[in-house]
């Protein structure tokens, strides 16, 4: 009877995350540090209708625009390359160091320092399930309730 009433989370709580999942989490956290925005474009739902004439645009204005040359859209198409593509290209173009890859600072020789994932102060304990650090019973409780086995960004 009791088992039927258990929530899914309680059952899950016995699980220990494997190395691959831990690494994936760490990578996701690092990727989040590079993001420009965490929310959607606030103007995404605006529909711009091209058919509607823009009244401020006089004939003069239009000829000036044409003289200005290619549009931003042209350059987007012309030089469309993603960052990983550029790095890959550079690997072939500049195979010998010094190059972009070789300039990256090497791993530190000092051991990692450990901080509580909840409050940020130096920590002594490691969460058995997910490997996060915590410093006190209180932080451990917060950690188990919030981030331990689910990813909340």
């Amino acid at each position, binding site marked *: 009877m009791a088992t039927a009433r258990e929530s899914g989370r309680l059952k899950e709580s016995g699980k220990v995350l494997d190395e691959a999942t831990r690494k994936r989490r760490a990578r996701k956290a690092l990727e989040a540090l590079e993001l420009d925005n965490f929310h959607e474009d606030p103007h995404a739902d605006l529909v711009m209708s091209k058919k509607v004439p823009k009244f401020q645009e006089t004939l003069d204005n239009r000829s000036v625009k044409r003289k200005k040359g290619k549009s931003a859209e042209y350059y987007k198409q012309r030089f469309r390359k993603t960052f990983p593509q550029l790095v890959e290209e550079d690997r072939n173009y500049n195979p010998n160091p010094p190059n972009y890859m070789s300039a*990256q600072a090497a791993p530190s020789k000092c051991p990692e320092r450990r901080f509580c994932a909840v409050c940020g102060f130096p920590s002594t304990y490691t969460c058995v399930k997910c490997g996060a650090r915590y410093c006190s019973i209180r932080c451990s409780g917060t950690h188990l309730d919030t981030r331990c086995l689910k990813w909340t960004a």
Partner: protein
Amino acid sequence: MDYDDVFVLDNGACTAKAGFASSDDARIIPNCIMKAKSERRRPFIGDQVEECRDASGLFYILPFQKGYLINWDVQKNIWDYIFSAECLPVNFPETPVVITEPYFNFNSCKEAMTEIFFEEYDCHSLLRINAGDLSSYHYFNTNQNSLCCLLVDVGYSFTHIVPYIKGKKLKNGIRRIDIGGKVLTNHLKEITSYRQLHVMDETYVMNQVKEDACFVSLDFYKDMKIAQKRGKENTIVRDYVLPDYTSIRRGYVKDPAVAPSGEDGDQQTLRLNNERFTVPELLFNPSDVGITQMGIVEAIVDSLSVCPAETHPHLYRNIMLVGGSTLFPGFRDRVCKEVRTLAPCDFDVNVTLAKNPITYSWNGGRLLTQDPEFSSRLVSKDEYEDHGYNICLDRFDV
């Protein structure tokens, strides 16, 4: 010389520093397009954001990714604004342009930049150069007796450590740490959102919080102990009043000496404690967030290890800090203190923080335009038309 003035553009990933060499200082223009929730009619390009009345939830569109120019359509729109009558009108056919690019810039980015300036803007002549080269030029210009300079440029996307020996950069010695202002702001957003208030959408506001409240600790574990104390003994904790864009236009750190009064009731505040110094600490210990790279000081020593031994005393004596993220209080002292402990004791260590670390490189460009050699470093439009892109490969040392 068939020109009167030169336009210098230090095209950074966060801000573009732009202006004519004849002006006193650069104009700092955010190098991005922003969209506000409150203003649905138009996006804000560059410093137009100053007209934005409600900067909460500002959405950013950036031309740069990881420090390199990727989104050319965005950059083109921003440049069009910068060079327009609204901002800094440039008469390109009669004006040489000095523009900066990052170290180890990708080949297709270089080509794209050259093409846009010559073919789209029809500029008179062009010099593409690393921002760090301009900074080092500035350094050697003001410190005529120095033979070497170790430049530490802490930018928005990354940090570079570059040894310059007799004015030339030693490419082997360049070290890049993938931490800059952007990672710091994002990290502050992340820990604040987890610990107290959801601010993940408030990049603009949290960047101001970072600039106003964060500092570099000189004794990290001692400050940690202070931050753990309660009441008056904790000299680190501060309350930060967030802007509400009705009565408070910009957030500020509350003066800890002033007792809270009744009228503060509806202010929204953040309590900043160890966040104040653990955030800039990432520059010195990237492994704190799991980035497996050396911190600034370790990388300085590592960069020096590939330089010829006879240059070491000169490099230790001429460490120069530039870039917006060096503005944290305590930054220079921390670098100085830690380099001192790692450097051989018979060497002098001297660390200088630029008076204006953001425009230091731009001002280097301004000085460079007065150099007698300057015009020989430019590629003119005629030369570009005769020899094509190859002449840029030969002439520009980037």
